[in-house]
């Protein structure tokens, strides 16, 4: 009995001590977490990696707010797929820190559909989409409604070596087709720079080819997964497969084609075997930097030309790939009004122009292309702007990831693509995955 009493006594003392510790910890935490009355709220901006431009804009807009808010940046992972995964996990978990997010356009519907994005107020949408290039605006919409604010836009253009085009007798002042590019490279025994790796870049290429041929990968993008209708098994799909297959089978993409991404195709283009390449504008500052470092000959810069993305059929418009970043606000953000205010500051045409000249990412707003300094830094800016007018987004559906991965798995390596079977097999496979009947 005395033993029990001692035990109970010890327990009570323990409980009291533990309660005291918990209260002390809670008090400390509450004091630490509390904000001073009237202090400016801090907005977290989840940014994708860049050359420091977004952090600089965050600083500028914090200062411009006159103390209304402070923007802090939080860095997302390097590649677009990992960025999507982290944002999706945080949004699904109801993270309240998702005040501003840098979003890749094809992922916007996946966040908008379950209501993870705060609605863009109509007046904000009206102001921030005024003068935005058509392709960039399409990538910020879901079910015909603006659900994110276009920030910067990206597109691929056709880069070419003037010497090779001249030797092949190709008139680059006129729009060119894929057949012409293939014939020119073949006649000069050079490599074409395309992205044939089993990666997101393959979907970008296939989407541009199908769209250029007048088709659509997804015909009803806002339908539920099991009702999505794909347009790969079509004349446009066959034409797209024909281009991929020819480049792959003829060895025109070089031996590195099955693992070639944007960066590796640029390196190949800069070498002796370079001829034509479809790629983003980052190629220009990257090549200039290599020339300045002495890693590449200075004559290379004069030999590089640019034009609109190749068309599929002569006399028809091209449909270049669209990339870039839109800004969204998480539906659990505690300061959505301030977040949209900050976004309006970030995406102002002046800031977009500054971001273009300092970080090389093209503006989504047409007005920004007229800013001073752009023409000197990016002589191809008018081509980029024209490309953005024609650009076609990748399928805007919440199931984009499944469709993209399905394309990557069935259209690689390029040398094994068969125009007669690949589009149909690819479509069947993706439909089965979307219905939950197959693994991906």
């Amino acid at each position, binding site marked *: 009995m005395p033993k029990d009493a001692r035990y109970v006594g010890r327990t009570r003392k323990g409980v009291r001590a533990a309660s005291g510790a918990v209260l002390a910890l809670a008090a400390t935490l509450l004091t630490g977490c509390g904000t001073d009355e009237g202090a400016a709220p801090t907005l977290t901006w989840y940014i994708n990696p860049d050359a420091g431009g977004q952090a600089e804009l965050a600083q500028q807009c914090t200062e411009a707010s006159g103390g209304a808010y402070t923007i802090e940046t939080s860095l997302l992972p390097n590649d677009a797929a990992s960025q999507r995964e982290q944002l999706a996990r945080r949004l699904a978990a109801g993270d309240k820190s998702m005040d501003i997010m840098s979003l890749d356009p094809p992922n916007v519907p996946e966040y908008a559909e379950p209501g993870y994005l705060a609605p863009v107020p109509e007046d904000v949408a009206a102001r921030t989409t005024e003068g935005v290039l058509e392709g960039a605006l399409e990538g910020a919409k879901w079910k015909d409604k603006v659900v994110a604010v276009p920030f910067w836009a990206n597109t691929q253009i056709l880069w070419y070596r003037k010497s090779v085009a001249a030797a092949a007798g190709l008139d680059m002042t006129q729009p060119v087709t894929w057949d012409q590019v293939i014939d020119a490279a073949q006649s000069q025994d050079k490599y074409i720079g395309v992205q044939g790796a089993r990666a997101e870049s393959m979907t970008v290429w296939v989407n541009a080819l199908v769209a250029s041929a007048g088709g659509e990968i997804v015909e009803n993008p806002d339908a539920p997964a099991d009702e999505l209708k794909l347009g790969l098994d079509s004349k446009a799909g066959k034409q797209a497969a024909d281009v991929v297959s020819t480049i792959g089978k003829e060895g025109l993409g070089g031996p590195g084609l099955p*693992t070639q991404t944007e960066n590796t195709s640029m390196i190949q283009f800069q070498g002796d075997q370079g001829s034509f390449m479809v790629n983003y504008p980052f190629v220009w500052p990257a090549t200039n930097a290599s020339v300045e470092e002495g890693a590449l000959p200075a004559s290379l810069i004069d030999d590089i030309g640019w034009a609109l993305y190749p068309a599929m059929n002569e006399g028809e418009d091209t449909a270049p790939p669209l990339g870039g970043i839109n800004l969204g606000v998480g539906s659990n953000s505690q300061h959505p009004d301030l977040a949209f205010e900050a976004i309006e500051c970030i995406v102002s045409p002046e800031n977009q122009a500054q971001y273009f000249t300092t970080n090389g990412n093209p503006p989504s707003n047409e007005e920004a292309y007229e800013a001073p300094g752009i023409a000197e830094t990016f002589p191809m800016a008018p081509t980029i702007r024209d490309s953005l007018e024609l650009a076609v987004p990748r399928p805007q559906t919440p199931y984009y990831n499944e469709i993209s991965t399905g394309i990557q798995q069935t259209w690689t390596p390029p040398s094994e693509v068969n125009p007669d079977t690949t589009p149909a097999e690819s479509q069947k496979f993706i439909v089965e995955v979307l219905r*939950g009947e*197959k693994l991906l």
Partner: protein
Amino acid sequence: MSTSVEAVRDAPAKPAATRQPLSDRAKAERRLGFWLAGPAFIIMLAVTAYPILLALWESLFKYRLTAPADREFVGLGNYATILSDGLFWRDLGVTVLITIITVVIELILGFALALVMNSALKAVRGWLRTAILVPYGIITVVSAFAWFYAFDINSGYINSWFAWVPGIDSDLNWFADTWTALSVIMASEIWKTTPFISLLLLAGLAQVPGELTEAAEVDGATWWQRMSKVIIPNMKAAIMVAVLFRALDAFRIFDNVYIMTNGAYGTEVLSLLAYRTSITRLEIGMGSAVSVLLFICVIIICFIAIKLFKVDLSGARGGK
């Protein structure tokens, strides 16, 4: 009442003939043991049992993280989809192939290294062990990147260094073909983890009584006879531990494949399939089902290894 409960609890541990009531000191020690081991046991439950049970539960649903409203109970439907899909069996085949080839080669190389370390002069023994262990000290992701950049067609030097070897030239894209890519993946795995096996085998080698090998030598046994009749049989427990640990490790291979090919061109393994389904596709239900199947495979490997070697590890610990 409490005495009878304790007696029942003690029953399997002690033969009936020697059963005696526990002394106060023994009881106190036992209580102390529970207090000391209890927190670790609870933490183990929290970090292993809970996720496993949660994965089992989630695997019964069709559930996508970005479509929470569409969550639907499908019973064993996810398992039926996975087991009837060729992709799962292909990935399982690749995983098993990597496991068998790497473990066999590592075992042979590791044993040779263990013999070298065991018989090296005392003066160089420490340096030798350190040198052999260097690859194992490198973080797997770092070594995977090193191997990737060495073999990459753009940045790699292997093609130019080994151009004199038939089949290797500047146009060889190692990561564009199943067999060349798997060869690089397996080579990097073997390079990195052979030291681990050699260390385990060295410990086993050190436990073989010197009198036995000396007696065999005196009896005229050849080197091979001493090895196969004396040394290896006496190292069975160490070999089993080495094989089991490495087989489990190799079966769960992820980093090397993720960095070098990301599973492209027929190089996908089961853990990568689980990762892609759960994390990339955000299909929590299907991904959990793949993870559960992976877990079952790991248990089967443990079972096979213990049965195959017929080693009583509790005996080795002096439990009996």
